[in-house]
């Protein structure tokens, strides 16, 4: 198929960006969206132009590196799918596709479609861990049984890939879904309970410092999350946070 692309080009963080139009032809149904972008880039290099910078690595939907706002949606039109797993069969010959970076104050653009998501890392530094040392002197793993239901719920929360689509989808650019996923994973496991309250407080306050917006329960994050992280986690985080605030008084 032949497509018209409107791609956000921005030379650097301090430059003004703009949408630039490109045509690509002979795009196969079986290509992934990023392979379509590769095709565009080969074409640009051929013409002596700079290829479009975009983030990606695993191309298997697991590393969380790929981003892209495609026709107004983070990771494009397919539900539960990262951009690297989005396939061109979801588009039609002759379509015009708008490709922009994730937009949020806390995710500044670095170049073209690449944004800086290191705010997520800093939130994790604030408490996204269990304080156990790595000496290897831990007790036997089966000495701490975990009910299967809890283990499964913790696992579901732990599948967040840190892509930031939830932030990009939210009209307030809130990072609640992301943060609540980590808080929930640990709050659900016996190992993480001891510091659950402190963790919630520290991570939430770092989240605020990073300039993410507030949650107004619109649910756009859940709808756009490629890993199906549920809003239930936000409720759990609020409970943890609340009990932490009460406890600390």
């Amino acid at each position, binding site marked *: 198929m032949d497509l018209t692309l409107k791609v956000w080009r921005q030379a650097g963080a301090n430059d003004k960006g703009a949408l630039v139009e490109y045509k690509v032809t002979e795009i196969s149904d079986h290509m992934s969206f990023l392979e379509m972008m590769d095709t565009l880039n080969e074409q640009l290099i051929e013409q002596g132009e700079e290829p479009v910078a975009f983030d990606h690595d695993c191309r298997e939907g697991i590393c969380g590196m790929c981003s892209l706002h495609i026709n107004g949606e983070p990771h494009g039109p397919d539900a*539960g799918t990262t951009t690297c797993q989005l396939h061109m069969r979801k588009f039609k010959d002759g379509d015009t596709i708008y490709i922009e970076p994730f937009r949020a104050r806390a995710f500044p653009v670095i*170049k073209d479609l690449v944004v800086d998501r290191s705010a997520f890392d800093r939130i994790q530094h604030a408490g996204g861990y269990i304080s156990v040392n790595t000496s*290897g002197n831990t007790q036997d793993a*089966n000495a701490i*049984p975990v009910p*299967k239901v809890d283990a499964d719920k913790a696992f579901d929360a*732990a599948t967040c890939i840190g892509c930031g689509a939830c932030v990009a989808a939210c009209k307030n650019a809130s990072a609640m879904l992301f943060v609540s996923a980590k808080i929930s994973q640990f709050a659900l496991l016996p190992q993480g309970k001891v510091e659950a309250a402190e963790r919630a407080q520290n991570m939430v306050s770092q989240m605020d410092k990073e300039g993410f917006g507030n949650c107004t329960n619109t649910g756009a994050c859940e709808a756009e999350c490629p890993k199906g992280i549920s809003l239930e986690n936000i409720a759990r985080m609020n409970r943890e946070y609340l009990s932490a605030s009460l406890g600390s008084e």
Partner: protein
Amino acid sequence: MKFDAKTPEGPIASKWTSYKDHINLVNPANKRLIDVIVVGTGLAGGSASATLAELGYNVKAFCYQDSPRRAHSIAAQGGINAAKNYQGDGDSTYRLFYDTVKGGDYRSREANVYRLAEVSANIIDQCVAQGVPFARDYGGLLDNRSFGGVLVSRTFYAKGQTGQQLLLGAYSAMNRQIARGKIAMYNRHEMLDLVVVDGKARGIIARNLVTGEIERHSAHAVVIASGGYGNVYFLSTNAMGSNVTAAWKIHKKGAYFANPCFTQIHPTCIPRSGEYQSKLTLMSESLRNDGRIWVPKNMEDVHAIREGRKKPTDLSEEERDYYLERRYPAFGNLVPRDVASRAAKERCDAGYGVNKTGEAVYLDFKSAIERYGKEQARIHNIENPSHEKIVALGEEVVRAKYGNLFQMYEKIVDEDPYKTPMMIYPATHYTMGGIWVDYDLMTTIPGCYAIGEANFSDHGANRLGASALMQGLADGYFVLPYTIGNYLADDIRTGRISTDLPEFEEAEKQVREKLEFFVNNTGSHSVDHYHKQLGKVMWDKVGMSRNEKGLQEAIDEIKAIREDFWKNVKVPGNMSEMNPELEKAMRVADFLELGELFARDALHRNESCGGHFREEYQTEDGEALRDDKNFAYVAAWEYQGEPSKAVLHKEQLEFKDIELKTRSYK
């Protein structure tokens, strides 16, 4: 140069303990005076960074992604082995040791493998303590499954996302140390050279991939944890950025490169669909626990399927050739990866491939779905269930076990694997070769260590499933933190190492010149153009099976591609900004050198073993023919200005605790 594996004396079961009892320790107050650089934050580098920081060293960690959490380890699906014997099926340290040595076709160092098996159980304890949500059974205890090539259930897993969960565990341990200021994390930084001062590794040259700035970083030791080089094939299951640069750069500075030709081809990948393809996707081999592999028995059916006149589901049991069950009755669909891969290729080469390119076989879940469905019906007391009911119940079980893999398949291929068999074909997956290290995990450059997939150790000629994650974490959490102390004990009075030394200046100059060359070259082809050419030569002539003629041709062809690359490559943009094309150019330049050494290594090894299959050396029924008399050694190559001039050193392998036997899975 000294070339000594430094294997401790004594009985195998007590080597590691007595080693630990006798090494030098660094006083905690002195650890604060010592800096360690870790290149790579996958399972190996992440776990090492966290632990070294925990011990008190100042760690500087580097990765090319925007966050350590995105390292390629995140993509591992199937699971991690550990000799816990929770299932009571007879597992033990010795048995894991034995399986690994045998699975590696007797081309690994016994002492290292034993140590790996010994610490394996501890890895699980460590990860569980960190909150890694492994699969559990209804009693709340950890669940296990079995993997190709072994007869016990020793694989721990977290659905099909084990690598992700383990990496997030290591990442969280890193975060704790970053918060305490013990790890300085350099994201979006690429190491482009090693700095050696007075014969010791003392730092690196790195490029900040956001600003393009070239930086000097010094340390008392440098740890390379940069992963494998499977992307030398262009198409592989590795992440797009996975590369050999860090390993190759230290090779050029004196680290021997061992067994480059030992590469694992994984049997269960999604077949390629066209020229535009950028990478291949793996389907976890845990699927082979329940899936049965087959191709049609009759050529007419093959044609009918390829032309769309028949569907695989139209073929009866009798019309299918379950070739693994036929050839290897003892292990059936669970034979090791090299055996399964070659058997698939053999069937496809004979014309029985089931897709348009003729490069695909079926992986079928129909019998598993029915088997599980019947079991569920019995458990839930459903009398006389209809076939539909059985299938629905069975699909639920399969969904719980492999749901995300099935979903991934459906997204890529646009077919529902619950209803129709998956198509699979082998692809390059893991590299057993890598930087040669001794028992301490130190390379032939003093103070430079290599861990995880970047080193050559522990898997021999073939890696069994679920053992790479185990090795990465064993190295990082439990082995390196001890062995590095033994070396660093001598460095407590060295003080800070200046980055103004002439060695730093010179290394930076070299890096700068290379970068300048690329952005100023007026060529006509993209970097990918060359990478694809290299990949094609590698796959066709240095791939799943090799012969002398093909390898000789490959060596010449790779050289020619390399020459053309340096003349005609085109890299737009400049070097003082984010420039992904420039990053790729630097990496492909190194692949173009490694590829040649890889082919040379395959050419000199006149035997077949594990993942290395030389067509001249096979038994009458097409199985690999090993030559223990002449090749029971590690091939360690020393760089001498060019890959073609590399000098071969041999580390003779001794098998004292396991008898060398022909590997048979019949």
